[in-house]
């Protein structure tokens, strides 16, 4: 039970989209992250998960709420403190090639992080760069190469080396594996987990890929239309998904274990516009379990168990409970799985 590294409270991010209209990308999000823990932010496009990551990194200014990191409010850091903050919070992006300056050698890219973010003496930087490259599983001589010489997996290793150069306390991983093939992806996930075990770094892992999330996360927060709709330990959210959106997400992802079986539950229509948010529950227009009351009041994120929260009136006891015999319950039990010997349930869709 240690102090959280990161505590996001009531985070709101709006974008002005002209004609006085406002797009609400992030809507009163609360998150906590303990040292050495991985919290996954999961959701489809338009869920606001990437915007949350950009706000935490202070690459974007927030509209409301607080982001507490090591006791400081990130949203109002003075430039001098911002520098100290950058030494403790780093990032790995989705597209590894795009995130490396094509004109800089691999060595120069990592050295730049050492120069900007650490007090390493100039003479030591070359040696340290090689150590970092070795740490992420690259040949230290790769320092001489340029990004276009590397495969996507190797490029992502360079981006990881750059991010851990300052030994950060928090790493924001924005879809770091979704452009990689499955084997490379599992190699990168293994690397990230070993780094976390060694350095005790907390990870904010942003992804739409449920398999990867299952492999790396301790806790998960499912986002829909700028809100967290369900959050809890990974076993609870995957094993006993409570919110209809989470259930639909898990049901839509095809998996080896479920094979041909159709999980049944699916969402109708399209995600509503974040410029003109609905009155009641944001999922009401698409939810297969919707009741009239769902369209009236906006549900709060309320506990299902001590650590598991859900934003659904039918889950948190305000309205008639969701039908237990929903078709998707089939994949919450490991029995009847075609291949038998695996406990896994859901596979990604990258």
């Amino acid at each position, binding site marked *: 039970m240690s102090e959280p590294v990161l505590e996001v409270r009531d985070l709101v991010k709006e974008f002005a989209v002209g004609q006085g209209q406002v797009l609400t990308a992030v809507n009163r999000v609360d998150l906590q992250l303990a040292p050495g*823990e991985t919290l996954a932010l999961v959701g489809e496009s338009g869920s606001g998960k990437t915007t949350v990551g950009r706000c935490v990194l202070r690459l974007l200014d927030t509209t409301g709420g607080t982001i507490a990191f090591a006791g400081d409010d990130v949203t109002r850091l003075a430039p001098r403190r911002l520098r100290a903050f950058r030494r403790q919070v780093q990032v790995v992006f989705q597209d590894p090639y795009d995130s490396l300056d094509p004109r800089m050698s691999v060595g120069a890219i990592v050295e730049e992080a050492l120069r900007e973010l650490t007090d390493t003496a100039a003479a030591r930087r070359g040696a340290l760069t090689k150590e970092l490259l070795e740490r992420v599983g690259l040949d230290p001589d790769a320092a001489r190469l340029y990004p276009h010489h590397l495969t996507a997996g190797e490029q992502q290793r360079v981006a990881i080396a750059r991010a851990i150069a300052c030994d950060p306390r928090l790493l924001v991983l924005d879809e770091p594996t979704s452009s990689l093939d499955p084997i490379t992806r599992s190699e990168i996930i293994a690397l990230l987990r070993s780094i976390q075990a060694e350095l005790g770094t907390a990870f904010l892992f942003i992804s739409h890929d449920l398999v990867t999330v299952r492999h790396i996360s301790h806790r998960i927060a499912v986002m829909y239309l700028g809100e967290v709709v369900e959050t809890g330990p990974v076993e609870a959210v995957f094993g006993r998904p409570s919110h209809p959106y989470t259930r639909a997400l898990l049901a*839509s992802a095809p998996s080896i274990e479920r094979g041909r079986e159709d999980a049944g539950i699916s969402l109708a229509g399209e995600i509503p516009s974040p410029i003109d948010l609905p009155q009641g529950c944001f999922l009401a227009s698409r939810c297969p379990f919707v009741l009239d009351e769902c369209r009236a009041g906006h549900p709060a994120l309320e506990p299902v168990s001590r650590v598991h929260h859900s934003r659904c009136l039918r889950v948190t006891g305000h309205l008639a409970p969701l039908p237990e015999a929903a078709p998707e319950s089939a994949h919450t039990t490991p029995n009847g799985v075609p291949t038998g010997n695996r406990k*896994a349930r859901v596979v990604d869709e990258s």
Partner: protein
Amino acid sequence: MSEMLHAEGVTVDYRDRQTLRDVSLTVGAGEILGVVGRSGAGKSILVRALINLVPPPGKLVDGEIRAFGTDLRAIGEAEARSLRGARIGVIVQNPRGHLNPLLRVGTQISNVYRAHHDATKAEARERAISVLRDVGIPAPEHRYAAYPHELSGGMAQRAMIAMALVCDPELLIADEPTSGLDVTIQDQILKLFRRSVDERRTGGLLVTRDMGIVARFCDRVAVLHEGEIVEQAAVPAFFSDAVHPVSTRLIASASFAADAPGPAEVAQ
């Protein structure tokens, strides 16, 4: 004719390197063949080779490709083109680049339909709108008149899929058609694909990185590795008995392995 596609000994050279070596595969009626492999294994080249459109400097140097019994390498370009539009549907990666930015999306789709059918403009429009609806585009009557830049990336991708489906092809060749799309949309599109193959006894070849898609939607699977097919099997058997190391690694990487991190020491 139950064989929709039959390829034998397909070999492609790219400059002085062989990118495809002696690839043989078939797609039967009512069947979807999944093609999987690591990036760089030659999956996208294979898709192009199968429609005899290998981009230079690549060169299809050897092999036989028959679609519905017709030798694709023997027929002229005009005949091949009418085959590709009407009876063979092709979905490539990076769909946005394949939409003409100056034409309305709906017009482009109905043009494809009219090129291969004797249909009036109104009929083609109706057909295009119904396909747009099938691939999950909301308000298709409205989107019909949109230009490509007015669509989101996912929406443009679905429009491309609609274009490949508008003629009800008997053979659909798709290269990662749903990569980057949200899972709920992906599910809808692949179900549509599966249903059309089942109901109309057509054939499909689906290149994917997602082993879950293979398990859910394919009947057989071919594993491509460094330009060669290293394993080919029926789907349930493949997941239980795959032997090639690439196959087993692909399967392992896509499973919820038991080595997920233990319960977190959460500060709550």
